[in-house]
C-alpha cells in the first residue's frame, strides 16, 4: 500500500459543480476551509452538503472544478490515496472485525509500525479501550459512534469528514457527543468538516458554518454572525426563527436608518441594513421582543396594538403568538424568569425591542 503523501494545508474547493442526470446537486461552489478549523456545512436534506463531502472524500467525482489541500490537487485522487478520513453517518464499522481491528484497519493498510500503541492511544481518547475485543454489533449506538471516530482519527488525516455523525443518537447522548467531538478536535488539531442538517449541532461545535441551499452556499460565518446577522431569509429561518415585517426606508439619521413598518416608525443601525433599495424586510428574532401591557413604559422600537392569540409553555421560555393590527402573527419568546407580565389569550399587548437586534433584508427577498 502506498503511503499517502504528507499533504497539509487549507482545503480549497474552487468552482465545484456536480451534476447528476436530471439535477445539479452542487452548483459552482467555492470554499476555503482553513487548516485546523472545525467547519460545518449546514443545510436541509438535498441541499448538496453530503455530495460536497463525498467529493472531498473521493467517493464522487465533481463534474467540474478543483479540490486541493494546500498545494496538492486531489480532485481525481482515489479515496485510498487521499489524506482524508470519514466518519460515516451509519458508522460503517466492519461487523466481522473486532473493535481493535476496526480501528487498526487504516494503519495496517498503510503499513504503519506500532499499530498497537496507536490504537490503544486513540481508544483511550474515546474512553473505550476496555471494549477492544468486542465486535461492533455488541456495542451501543453511542459507543459505535466513538469507535467510528477513533477509526478515522487514528490515521491523523489532514482532513476529517463527519457525515451527520450524531444523527442516529438520542438527544441527550447527542449533546454529550457534541461536547466530546469538539474537545477531541481541539486535542488532535485535525481539520474537521462536519455535515449536518441540525443547526444547533453546527452552531455548538463549529468555528465556521456554511449554510447551503440548492447546491450553493447562502452564507458563511461564525455561528454568532449567522444568527445575529443573517443575510438571507433562508438563513434567518434555517438558523432559529425570525419574524419578518415588510417596510420602507424613510430617511437616514446619522448612523441610523429610519424606516416605516406597517405605519410605525422604527430605527436601527445602518450596519444592520443589507437591503439595496428602500423596500425592506425587517427581521426580528422572537426572543428579542419584549411584551408589555399597553401603556407601560417602553424603550427602543415599539409596536403597539398586538393581541395574544396563542400561548405555549416550553419550559425555559413561553412562546406567544401575537396578532398585529395588520393581521400578521408575530412569534415572541419570553424567558420564564418573571420579567414578562402575566398574560392570557386575547390580552392586548405592546411589543418592543432594542434597535441593534433588528436586521433588514431586501424587500424582494424570499
Amino acid at each position, binding site marked *: *500500500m502506498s503511503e499517502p503523501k504528507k499533504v497539509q494545508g487549507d482545503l480549497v474547493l474552487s468552482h465545484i459543480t456536480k451534476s447528476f442526470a436530471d439535477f445539479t446537486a452542487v452548483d459552482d461552489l467555492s470554499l476555503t476551509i482553513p487548516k485546523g478549523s472545525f467547519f460545518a456545512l449546514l443545510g436541509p436534506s438535498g441541499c448538496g452538503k453530503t455530495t460536497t463531502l463525498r467529493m472531498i472524500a473521493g467517493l464522487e467525482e465533481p463534474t467540474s472544478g478543483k479540490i486541493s489541500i494546500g498545494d496538492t490537487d486531489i480532485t481525481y485522487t*482515489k479515496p*485510498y490515496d487521499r489524506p482524508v478520513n470519514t466518519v460515516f453517518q451509519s458508522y*460503517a464499522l466492519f461487523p466481522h472485525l473486532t473493535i481493535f481491528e476496526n480501528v487498526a484497519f487504516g494503519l495496517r*493498510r498503510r503499513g504503519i509500525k506500532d499499530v498497537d500503541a496507536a490504537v490503544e492511544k486513540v481508544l483511550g481518547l474515546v474512553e473505550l479501550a476496555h471494549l477492544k475485543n468486542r465486535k461492533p454489533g455488541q456495542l451501543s449506538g453511542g459507543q459505535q459512534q466513538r469507535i467510528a471516530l477513533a477509526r478515522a482519527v487514528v490515521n491523523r488525516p489532514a482532513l476529517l469528514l463527519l457525515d451527520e455523525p450524531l444523527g442516529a443518537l438520542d438527544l441527550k447522548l447527542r449533546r454529550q457527543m457534541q461536547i466530546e467531538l469538539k474537545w477531541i478536535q481541539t486535542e488532535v488539531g485535525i481539520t474537521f468538516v462536519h455535515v449536518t442538517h441540525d443547526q444547533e449541532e453546527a452552531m455548538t461545535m463549529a468555528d465556521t458554518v456554511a449554510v447551503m441551499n440548492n447546491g450553493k452556499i447562502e452564507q458563511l460565518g461564525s455561528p454568532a454572525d449567522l444568527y445575529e446577522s443573517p443575510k438571507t431569509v433562508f438563513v434567518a429561518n434555517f438558523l432559529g426563527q425570525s419574524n419578518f415585517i415588510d417596510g420602507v426606508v424613510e430617511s437616514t439619521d446619522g448612523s441610523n436608518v429610519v424606516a416605516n413598518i406597517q405605519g410605525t416608525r422604527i430605527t436601527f443601525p445602518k450596519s444592520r441594513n443589507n437591503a439595496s433599495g428602500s423596500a425592506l424586510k425587517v427581521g426580528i428574532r422572537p426572543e428579542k421582543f419584549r411584551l408589555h401591557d399597553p401603556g407601560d413604559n417602553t424603550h427602543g422600537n415599539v409596536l403597539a396594538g398586538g393581541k395574544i392569540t396563542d400561548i405555549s409553555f416550553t419550559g425555559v421560555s413561553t412562546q406567544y403568538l401575537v396578532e398585529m393590527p395588520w393581521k400578521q402573527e408575530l412569534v415572541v419568546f419570553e424567558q420564564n424568569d418573571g420579567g414578562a407580565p402575566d398574560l392570557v389569550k386575547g390580552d392586548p399587548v405592546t411589543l418592543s425591542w432594542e434597535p441593534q437586534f433588528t436586521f433588514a433584508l431586501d424587500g424582494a427577498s424570499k
Partner: protein
Amino acid sequence: MAIAHVSAPDAPIAPEKKSKKFAYILLAPGLLWLLIFFAFPLINLAETSTKTPAPTFETGEFVQTFRFMNFLDAFVDNQEQFYRSFIYALLATLLALAIAYPLAYAMAFRAGAWKNFLLIMVIAPFFTSFLLRTLAWKQILGAEGPVVSTLQFIGLMSPDGTITATAFSVIMGLTYNFLPFMTLPIYASLDRIDYRLLEASGDLYANGATTFRRVTLPLSMPGVVAGTLLTFIPASGDYINAQLLGNPDNYMIGNVINSRFFRVVDYPTAASLSFLLMATILIVVVIYIRRAGTDELV
C-alpha cells in the same frame, strides 16, 4: 463472550408457560412429519443394515442377525466408488464455487437494473426436471451433438473421441446441476453487504483488491459455506449424473446403492452403504464448519 446490552426482559412466569405449551402445539405437525418420514425410515434402514439373507435363500428375504461386519464388507467391496464420490463431489463443488462467486458478485454489485432478471435466470432451470436437464446434456455432449461435432470439425478432437462416458462429463453435470445451490446463498450474502462498508474500506486506504480480500470476502463467507454444503452434500450422494453422463468406470456410491436396492435386491448392503455415506458426510461437514468458523461472522 456475553452480549451485554441484550438482556431478556423479566417476563411473568405464567404467560411463558402458556406460550411454551402453545409452541409445542404449533410444532406438533412438524415433529410428527419428522417422526414418520425421517426417524422411522432411518430406524428401519438401521435395522436392515445388519440383516443377513434368510436361510431359504429367497430373493428379498432377510433376517436380523446383527451382523455389523456388513458395514466393513460394504465399504471394502465398494471403496473405489466411495472415494470417487467424494473426489467428484469435491471437484464439482470447487468448480461451482469458481463459477458462482463471480456470477453472484456481478449480480449483487454490478447488475443494476438487471439484478432480478439474472436472479430469475439462475432459478429458471428448476422449472424443468433435474432428470430432463441431465438428459439434455447427454444430447448436447453426445457423439452426434453439437459440441463434439464442432470440436471434431476444427480438429481439436479425434474423430472417435467422446465427451460423454468420461469423468469430465460427470463432474460437469454435477457442477451444472448444483450451480444454483451455490450461487443463491453467495448472492444472498453479498447482496446483504452494506455498500458503505466498501466505501469505508476505500476511505481507510484499502484499494479494490484489498477491500475484496479484507471486507467483501470475509462478509460473504456464510454464503460460501452454505453454498459449498448445499453442493457437496447432494453431489456426493448423486447417481443420476454418473448414470447418464458417465460409464461404469465413473460410477459413484449413489449408483452402487441404487443398484443394490433395485437390481441386486441386496437391502443390507445398500442400507450399510447409505449409513456409511451419511456418517462420512456428517463428519466432513462438521469438520468443515468448525474450520470455516462461520459462527464468528456477524
